[in-house]
C-alpha cells in the first residue's frame, strides 16, 4: 500500500498567497507594470472629463459655430427634449430590439454551424471558402436588395444585422473549436469517449469561453450595422432620429443619439463580460 504521507505534497498553489501584502510598486511608468484598481478607474474617467472639457471650450468659447457642433449644454437640452417631446425611448427600444433580434438569429444559426465546421474537417472544407467570401460582403451594400426583397419593415432591418453577423460568427467559432487542444481530445478517447462525446463534452465545453467572447465582439459590430440600416428607409430607431436631425441641422440631437448608442453598447458589453466571467469561472483562473 502507499506508505506515503500525502500531507507533504498536497499543497494547492492557491493557498500560499494568503495574507501576503502587495509589494509597493516603485516603477509605475515602466512598460507592462500593472496599475491598481482605483488609479485605473480614475484614469479612465479622467479622459471623459478631458474630452468634455475640450468640447466645452471650443463650443461655449465660441470657436466653433453652433451650426456645426452643438455645445454639451445644448446637447443635454436637446436630449431632454427628445425624451420629453419626441418619445425617444420608443426609438431606443426599436433599435435595441433590432440589434438583439438580428444578432440572436445570426447566433442561433452561426454557432452550431461554426461548431460543425470546427469539429469536422469535411464540413469545413465544404463551407469555409464560401463563408470566407461572404464575410467580405459589406452588410450595408445589401440594404437596397433587402428593401427590394423584404420591404421597409422590421424584417429588412433584422436581415441587415443578420448578414453582417452570421458569417463572422461562423468563421470565428469554427476557428475556436478547431483549435481545441489535441491532447485533451486524445485523453477523452482513451477514457472511452466516442465521436459525439468528443464534440459534446470536449470540443464544445473547451471552446465555450472563446465562443462567448466571439459573440460579445460581434454584438459590438452589430450596433454599427443597425444604425446604417436605420439611416435608409426607416421610420423609427436611433438611426432614423439622427437622419431627421440632420435635415434640421440639429447637431445636439445627433450627438446625443451617438452618445446613447455608445452608452447602450458599453452597458451590454459589461453585462456580456460579467456573464462570461460567471459562466466560465474555470477559464479565468
Amino acid at each position, binding site marked *: *500500500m502507499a506508505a506515503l504521507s500525502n500531507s507533504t505534497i498536497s499543497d494547492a498553489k492557491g493557498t500560499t498567497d494568503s495574507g501576503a501584502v502587495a509589494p509597493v510598486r516603485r516603477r509605475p511608468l515602466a512598460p507592462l507594470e500593472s496599475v491598481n484598481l482605483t488609479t485605473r478607474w480614475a484614469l479612465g474617467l479622467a479622459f471623459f472629463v478631458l474630452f468634455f472639457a475640450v468640447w466645452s471650450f471650443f463650443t461655449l468659447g465660441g470657436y466653433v459655430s453652433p451650426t456645426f457642433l452643438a455645445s454639451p449644454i445644448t446637447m443635454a437640452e436637446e436630449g431632454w427634449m427628445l425624451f420629453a417631446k419626441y418619445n425617444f425611448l420608443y426609438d431606443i427600444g426599436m433599435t435595441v430590439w433590432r440589434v438583439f433580434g438580428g444578432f440572436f438569429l445570426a447566433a442561433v444559426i452561426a454557432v452550431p454551424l461554426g461548431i460543425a465546421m470546427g469539429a469536422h474537417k469535411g464540413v469545413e472544407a465544404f463551407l469555409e471558402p464560401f463563408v470566407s467570401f461572404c464575410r467580405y460582403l459589406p452588410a450595408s451594400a445589401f440594404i437596397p436588395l433587402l428593401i427590394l426583397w423584404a420591404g421597409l419593415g422590421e424584417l429588412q432591418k433584422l436581415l441587415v444585422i443578420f448578414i453582417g453577423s452570421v458569417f463572422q460568427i461562423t468563421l470565428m467559432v469554427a476557428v475556436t473549436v478547431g483549435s481545441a487542444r489535441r491532447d485533451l481530445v486524445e485523453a477523452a478517447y482513451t477514457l472511452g469517449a466516442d465521436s459525439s462525446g468528443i464534440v459534446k463534452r470536449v470540443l464544445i*465545453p473547451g471552446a465555450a469561453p472563446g465562443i462567448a467572447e466571439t459573440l460579445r465582439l460581434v454584438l459590438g459590430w452589430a450596433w454599427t450595422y443597425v444604425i446604417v440600416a436605420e439611416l435608409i428607409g426607416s421610420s423609427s430607431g436611433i438611426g432614423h432620429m439622427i437622419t431627421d436631425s440632420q435635415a434640421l441641422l440639429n447637431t445636439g440631437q445627433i450627438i446625443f443619439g451617438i452618445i446613447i448608442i455608445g452608452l447602450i453598447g458599453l452597458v451590454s458589453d459589461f453585462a456580456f463580460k460579467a456573464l462570461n466571467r460567471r459562466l466560465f469561472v474555470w*477559464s479565468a483562473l
Partner: protein
Amino acid sequence: MSQLAIQNVSRIFHGARGQQTQALLPIDFDVHENDFVTILGPSGCGKSTLLRIVAGLDYPTTGRVLLDGQPVEGPGADRGMVFQSYTLFPWLTVEQNIRFGLRERGMPKPEQQERCNFFIAKVGLRGFENHFPKQLSGGMQQRTAIARALANDPKILLLDEPFGALDNQTRVLMQELLLGIWESAQKTVLFVTHDIDEAIFMANRVAVFSARPGRIKTELAVDFPHPRHYTIKTSPEFMELKARLTEEIRAESMAAADH
C-alpha cells in the same frame, strides 16, 4: 499468458516533402497480466510512438497489437492512458474529471460517485474534489490523471513519461504512490520513461530502446521483492542494475547525438 502482444509493429512517418522517417523497426513484445513493464530509452527513440500505437492513438505501418487476443483498432477505455502533458479537462473539477470516463459509458450516478471517492482517497486528493485543475500543483494534476485512468478500470494502464514535467522530489513521491497502488491492486502497466532510476524502481521488467529507428535492444528482469521501499534505490543490487542500464542508454544517446 500474455495479455498484450505487440507483433511485428513498425512505424514510418511520412514528411511533408515525401521524406520518410523510420521511427520504429518491427518490434515483437509481450506483456503479461499484472506485469509492470517500463520502456526505457533516450528521447526521440520512438518509445512514445509505440505506446501511442498500443493506446490506438497512432497506427502501425506494419504489424498489429493484440489485447487479450483482440486486435487494437483505435483508442478505447480498456487501455487507460496518462500523458506527460497535463490533460485534465480544465472546465471540470477534480471529481468531474475522474468521473469523465464513467459518465461516457453511462454508469449510474451513485456508482460513479462511489468509484470516484475511492480513487480520490487512493491518490490522496481528499478535500480537493471541487478544485479546478488550474488550482492544483503539477503533481496533484498528475495524481488526478492517474485516478481518472484507474477509475475506468482499464485492462492495462499506459503511462507516457507521466512524471517528466515534475520536480525531482515530487517525482520520487509520485513513483512511490503509483507503485503502492500497483502493489495493492494488481494491474498491467506499461510505463515509458527516460529516467533510469524510475525505470528500475517501479518495474518487474525493463525494456531498453535503441536510438532511432527504435527497437527493443535489451530486456532486463528486476527481481526486487514487493512492497518496495525507496531505500532500495541505494542498495548495491540497484546500483549494479543502474550501472548496467546507464551504459546501455549512454551508447544509444551517443548514437542519437551522432545523427
